[in-house]
């Protein structure tokens, strides 16, 4: 049987530097093939060559046994290869249907567009996938998660035989992810091949049939999922033996660090109350739109309509704006580092000092020495891999960027650390370093509140977990009683 896609000896270099040395890959019909590797492993380069975005330097690609070379994404699409990209590119003020059929609208009479046929076709597509989206809604009215689902529907509408999915679940919730997986199962049954890229190993183990691992731009190995276990796969991805994924070194104390009473914001969250002890990691789990992030917005002065009582070390504080929260010793690592965490056009050093500018300029003039020292200490403390701290932060890998965000906040020596999806889009190796940083901080008496939509992470890291549902706290579970079933049960 010929494979849908076969790649051998693929090489590509940028400016004399190898991004991919020996790319090997084989995709069988009717299967889901996981492409694994850390940031910088060469996955994106591999995908962009297959999609015709970059030209290869060497190697061969066979599409159903025929050698091919794509020079543009359109050519790849024409030969039945579609991609669902991680970064969304919707046209916000067009409808869902218009977005799905962009550039290939069904034509009606007099050369116009047959909107009725288009909407019908789009709705059928969405219904088949069991996505709760109307085809005549505008994109702008959808949540990020739903936009992602539309993007998925769009790729599927091309009737492609080979579908690449690059981190398709990074912005969607558990329930929507399960819809997606059900859709993937149906595609598989139709004999199509799916190449699935994700940092989330639990997903890979759930849906993939085979795997291929890249590391440092080279092929490491491949095989059937049934023949590999999680520690072995992690070992292949990071290239060294790692211990337990979650090592808890912290223990909650009796002292309450943060207490929240009756927190609410109209239309977002209602009557949320909880206590977090010093030395504790308090997890918050919930689906997209359940009000997780909104809790942090209220605590950090980013939501003007927020009300409720916030107590730090037993005394009530008033927080109107982020500067108030910071003055009280709160730190917020936001959900999306590119949108709200970093100034991508600036250097590593200046990003580290971004939240400490007044402290570094007591007389209005910036103290250069303080800034250099602060940047150096954070880079050393968190092992941030940057050639120089004056290089643009946009040039770092996702994991290192996230560590820059952590460095920015740890520089302020916070009393309470609010973490929103602290390991999103971060590779397995960097994830562990971030877990260690969080644990060390809690072990030293810090108070941690961590939002995560990854069940493994929330269970592995938290001492207690609060589950959010529809803007309310559905329950708070102790570490001993929390498990995947109870979290999913409470959140839906």
């Amino acid at each position: 049987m010929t494979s849908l896609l076969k790649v051998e000896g693929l090489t590509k270099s940028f400016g004399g530097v190898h991004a991919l040395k020996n790319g090997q890959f084989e995709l069988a019909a009717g299967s889901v093939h996981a492409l694994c590797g850390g940031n910088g492993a060469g996955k994106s380069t591999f995908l962009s060559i297959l999609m015709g975005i970059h030209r290869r330097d060497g190697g061969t690609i066979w599409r159903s046994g025929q050698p091919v070379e794509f020079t543009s994404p359109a050519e790849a699409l024409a030969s039945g290869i579609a991609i669902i990209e991680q970064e969304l590119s919707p046209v916000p003020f067009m409808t869902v249907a218009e977005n799905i059929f962009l550039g290939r609208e069904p034509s009606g009479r007099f050369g116009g567009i047959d909107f009725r046929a288009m909407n019908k076709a789009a709705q059928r597509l969405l219904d088949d996938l069991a996505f709760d989206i109307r085809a005549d809604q505008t994109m702008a009215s959808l949540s990020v998660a739903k936009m992602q689902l539309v993007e998925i529907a769009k790729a599927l509408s091309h009737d492609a035989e080979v579908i690449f999915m690059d981190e398709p679940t990074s912005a969607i919730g558990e329930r929507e992810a399960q819809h997606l997986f059900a859709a993937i199962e149906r595609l598989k049954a139709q004999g199509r091949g799916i190449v699935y890229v994700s940092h989330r190993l639990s997903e890979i183990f759930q849906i993939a049939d085979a795997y291929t691992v890249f590391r440092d731009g080279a092929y490491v190995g491949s095989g059937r999922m049934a023949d590999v276990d999680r520690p072995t796969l992690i070992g292949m991805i990071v290239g060294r033996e790692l211990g337990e994924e979650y090592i808890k070194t912290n223990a909650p104390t009796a002292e309450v660090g943060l207490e929240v009473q009756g927190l609410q914001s109209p239309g977002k969250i209602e009557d949320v109350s909880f206590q977090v002890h010093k030395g504790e990691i308090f997890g918050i789990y919930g689906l997209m739109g359940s009000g997780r992030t909104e809790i942090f917005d209220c605590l950090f002065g980013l939501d003007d309509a927020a009300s409720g009582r916030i107590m730090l070390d037993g005394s009530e504080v008033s927080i109107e704006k982020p500067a108030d929260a910071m003055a009280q010793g709160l730190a917020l690592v936001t959900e999306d580092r590119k949108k709200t965490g970093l100034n991508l056009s600036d250097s590593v050093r200046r990003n580290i000092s971004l939240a400490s500018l007044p402290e570094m300029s007591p007389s209005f003039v910036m103290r250069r020495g303080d800034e250099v020292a602060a940047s150096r200490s954070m880079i050393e403390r968190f092992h941030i891999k940057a050639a120089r701290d004056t290089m643009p932060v946009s040039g770092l890998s996702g994991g290192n960027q996230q560590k820059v965000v952590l460095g920015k906040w740890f520089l302020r020596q916070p009393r309470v650390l609010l973490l929103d999806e602290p390991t999103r889009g971060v590779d397995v190796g960097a994830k562990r370093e971030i877990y260690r940083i969080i644990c060390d901080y809690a072990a030293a008496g810090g108070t941690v509140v961590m939002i995560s939509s990854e069940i493994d992470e929330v269970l592995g890291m938290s001492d207690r977990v609060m589950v959010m549902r529809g803007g309310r706290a559905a329950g708070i579970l102790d570490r001993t009683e929390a498990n995947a079933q109870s979290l999913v049960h409470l959140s839906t």
Partner: protein
Amino acid sequence: MSDGNVKPATGWLGSEKRRLLVQEYGIFIAFLILVAILSVSNPYFLTAGNISNVLLQTSINGVLAIGMTFVILTRGIDLSVGSVVALAGIVSASFATTSATAMVPGGPYPVALALAVGILVGVVSGAIVGVIVSRFAVPAFVATLGMLSAARGATLIYGGGRPVPALLPEFRWIGTGNVFGIPMPVVILIVVFALSWWVLARTRFGRYIYAVGGNPHAAKTSGIDVTRTRFVVYVISGGLAGLAGMILSARTGSALPQAGIAYELDAIAAVVIGGTSLSGGVGRVTGTLIGALIIGVMNNGLDLMGIQSYYQQILKGALIVGAVMLDQKRNQGF
């Protein structure tokens, strides 16, 4: 795509250095080449008299462009500066004229007062725009377009559509005087440049500006007062436009209601040629100064070659677009 993979993991230092070099000095090298060509083609170009002339002609646009740099660094734009030049010029002149005017009876007043009033007019116009942009979230393009029209109207009403002539010699000194042989407008430009460079490169407020322009959301969650920062940059731009307006009145000896028309375009051009990104967060006031000098030198050089001013406009247009095209190219990397 997961980030960072497309870029080479190691060895980028070489290309990074080269990129920085071009970014830092590219515009300066272009300026030197332009000067070299003009010096060879016209012996008069590099004489002290002509250099002084070029600097003098650059000074007003330079001051405006420096104010514009503050605004553009925060992702904004200030289209109102040309009209504010006229308004501040005429209001300050009405305090410093020896002829009887209806607006300010009992003049002329001390020059210091006239100057303070001129700056104040600019600051107030900037503050109005600043409040509209930062508090009411009106796009800067729209808010300053409104001010462009309103300030021109205010100028015409204030002066009754007539110029204010016969300015005090002390007032005229800021446009025509010399300090150690350097024309006053050039001295003012140098002082404004030095202060602005210091604010942007060395102070907390400078950092706020780059942070707000680079990523306003990240700036806000990092505790930076984005609203206030945005407000202040329009006040700075307005104040500098007021200053430029007085220099212009002082040089011409009377304040004209039609002064400063389309000055905003040259100011934006200088900023853009100087490498500041219209999408904010990236740029320097040094680049802006060289950008203003390039425009000044080019106009002067074409004059010397006897090329009609109509052609100069076409060339300037090409220069602006060309500079941004080069910028795009070098941002895409080597």
